[in-house]
């Protein structure tokens, strides 16, 4: 299984600012995923990030609000732009398993509070 780290683990931000979340994996992976978990709710997929190509966004999420970078096979960033209190959530990155790509391994998450 992959070991995934995220930075920062938590942050408190002001409305209108942006925050970039980093996700580092200890092995090379093809696909990385970014999820949002709003308070008391389940996970919602924001986008899928492949190295060397544009991220694929799910319905309701747009690149201007959530730009994603994937510069290599072990790293990705998600930026939450022009934040509002509604963006207060846990943001999780994950990777597909190498033996069974249907399963996913998750990072510890970034807990974001927007004031």
């Amino acid at each position, binding site marked *: 299984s992959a070991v995934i780290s995220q930075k920062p683990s938590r942050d408190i931000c002001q409305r209108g600012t942006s925050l970039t979340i980093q996700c580092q994996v200890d092995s090379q992976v093809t696909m990385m995923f970014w999820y949002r978990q709003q308070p008391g*709710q389940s996970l919602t997929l924001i986008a899928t990030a492949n190295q060397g190509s544009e991220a694929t966004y799910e319905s309701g999420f747009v690149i201007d609000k959530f730009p994603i970078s994937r510069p290599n096979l072990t790293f990705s960033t998600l930026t939450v732009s022009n934040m509002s209190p509604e963006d207060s959530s846990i943001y999780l990155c994950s990777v597909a398993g190498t033996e*069974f790509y*249907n399963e996913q391994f*998750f*990072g510890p*998450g970034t807990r974001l509070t927007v004031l």
Partner: protein
Amino acid sequence: AQSVTQLDSQVPVFEEAPVELRCNYSSSVSVYLFWYVQYPNQGLQLLLKYLSGSTLVKGINGFEAEFNKSQTSFHLRKPSVHISDTAEYFCAFNTGGFKTIFGAGTRLFVKA
């Protein structure tokens, strides 16, 4: 539409008692099924998975789940819970691609 329904949002149970967390899914094609656990202030950890074969699947920490195709269910069970099992449990599936559908979660609260 594809969906996962976790029938209980919260399940309180006393320590050493058995527990069942219920999960039903809706899909027109074959699915791979998963249970993930999220401990407080942590990310999700895979508890167990059903890909094929035996319908009774054993996972970590003494949990098991049974796939019932006719009832489209994948209930999670543990014969005797511990305080440390207190967490959020998510049922999920995918149909062979990379996109995974998650349920709303069940909060298991184990009381002493």
